């Protein structure tokens, strides 16, 4: 790691306590994400959880096609890059031949809820013991801001220039609610990372999801993170987070959708 203190004249640097540092599981690579994007926050939370649960050497992640296609560049764990929409099928292949490893997918809305809907639903329906992390930012960021299956009604994108029109483009899909109906879903939650409090809640959700897998509870643990896309939405990072808190969560309310029954 580059020594950022080089050349800085400061007597008390050596005597200060380290209160915040990069988890070793997060590689020291400049991220390609736009400033203010939720992806980098969720990456960090995910890798903190992997670090804290001490599963770095037994975890295999699956990266999708979309903005997080390069997720493996930032994660010091084994990873496979899947074809568009097929991440959960790839994860199924991995988990079934190596059942003692910890397997997760990290997917966007286009990947998980459009082109890969069949794989998503059937992976959950088989009750695969994996974690699915779903970044719902309501837009195709990587390809330049086209409509996603989760784009809200009225939202302007590069393929809905007059705003999403339900009669033409259909309804924004609530895939987390759909899969929560399946017996193969063990834990389904929807969170965000728009504030410090929300970040802490998302981390807790990820901890729970990975712990479920480690404890072999049986079934998919699904963590949706309602995320921003300042570049795609043409907003500042702050304004995009406010948009989530004030508007998006009315359609995609935060909180647990399915929790394991006690006992």
């Amino acid at each position, binding site marked *: 790691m580059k020594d950022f203190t080089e050349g800085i004249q400061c007597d008390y640097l050596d005597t200060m306590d380290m209160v915040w540092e990069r988890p070793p599981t997060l590689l020291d690579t400049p991220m390609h994400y736009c400033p203010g994007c939720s992806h980098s926050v969720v990456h960090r939370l995910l890798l903190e959880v992997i670090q804290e649960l001490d599963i*770095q*050497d*037994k*975890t*295999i992640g*699956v*990266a999708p096609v979309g903005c997080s*296609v*390069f997720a*493996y560049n930032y*994660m*010091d*764990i*084994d*990873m*496979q*890059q*899947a*074809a568009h929409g*097929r991440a959960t*099928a*790839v*994860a*199924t*292949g*991995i988990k*079934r*031949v*190596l059942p003692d*490893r*910890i397997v997760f997918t990290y997917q966007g809305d286009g990947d998980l809820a459009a082109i890969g809907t*069949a*794989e998503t639903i*059937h992976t959950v329906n*088989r009750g695969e013991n994996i974690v699915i992390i779903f970044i719902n930012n309501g837009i195709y960021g990587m390809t330049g801001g086209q409509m996603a299956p989760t784009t809200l009604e009225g939202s302007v994108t590069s393929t809905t220039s007059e705003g999403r029109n339900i009669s033409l483009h259909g309804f924004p899909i609530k895939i987390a609610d759909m899969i929560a109906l399946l017996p193969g879903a063990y834990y389904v939650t929807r969170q965000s990372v728009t504030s410090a409090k929300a970040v802490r809640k998302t981390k807790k959700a990820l901890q729970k999801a990975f712990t479920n897998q480690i404890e072999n509870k049986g079934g998919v643990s699904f963590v949706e993170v309602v995320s921003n896309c300042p570049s795609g939405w043409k907003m500042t990072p702050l304004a995009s987070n406010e948009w989530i808190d004030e508007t998006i969560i009315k359609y995609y309310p935060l909180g647990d959708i399915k929790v394991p029954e006690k006992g």
Partner: protein
Amino acid sequence: MKRLMKGNEALAEAAIRAGIKGYFGYPITPQSELLEYMSVHLKNRGGVFIQAESELAAINMVYGAAGCGVRVMTSTSSPGFSLMQEGISYIACAELPCLLVNVVRGGPGLGTIQPSQGDYFQAVKGGGHGDYKMIVLAPNSVQEMADHVYLGADLADIYRIPVTILADGALGQMMEPIEFPEYDIEKHTIDHSAWATRGRINGKRHVITSLYMKPEEMEEINKGLQKKYRDIEEKEIRFESIQTKDADIIIVAFGLVSRIAHKTIELAREEGIKVGLFRPITLFPFPSRQLQALSKKTDLILTVEMNSGQMLEDVKLAVNGQTPVAFYGRMGGVIPQPEEILKVLKEKQNQLSLRKKV
């Protein structure tokens, strides 16, 4: 001891004996017996069986499991093989070893469920996007349906390449006596720990990908693949040559058609026509040099296929105009008869001698 078995079941049993640890498939005629056999026997013998929701999912399960360095396979028939092409392109680029089986049926479209060789181009030329190749094996008996599994699994591991067994509906459905060869899985196991994703082997992370953002980098990846394909062309060509030494006419045929053509040779020789058979066993790598050498000593080459003339293009490229190349094909699931081929052969021979007289 020999056993009487269906082609699809012989292939499935051989796969388990060859150490296949994961099978991911979707039902489709005429290969469903393979899937059904695996659902019982692979599971009972310690392997993983999943009936996937589609061939798309199946091939991507193969990708994931193969990426862990585990011997895995899938099987399908033509329409399902089309669905798998995307995944195969990714597998080829990520250099993952796996065994694929296409029990070909008549096409295009939903086509028929009868045997065909209409997927030659798709298998041999690369049906998915980008510059890639698979090793393609063409069995012509139930015995070879089994034998090619061992060969294919080994070649896949050695070259880190998808290997396709290109059979057809008849080979899958017909019964013949077969014997499973001795095969020591331990001796044939290749250590994949230098690249497989099993959770940071020796503290080093591995990434399976086919994505490279810089074109120069992607070109290097391509050069590496092409080098591997040239190496395979150098070392792995397999073919069969029957009664070609004194032959005036050579029939070129693969798979089921080569069995039928064998009978045509007998019939022709009874009538004093010297006919031989050249049978490519590996469709990629194609035995071009061997066919070229043979073509110099013959008057006519007749390519017979159960398609509209797909291998024909590779035959012509190999012969390179040195000898006339004729073609006869049946399509849509129709199997040519030995007498039918003999009749065509005589016609082509007459046309040739007439042309010579002129």
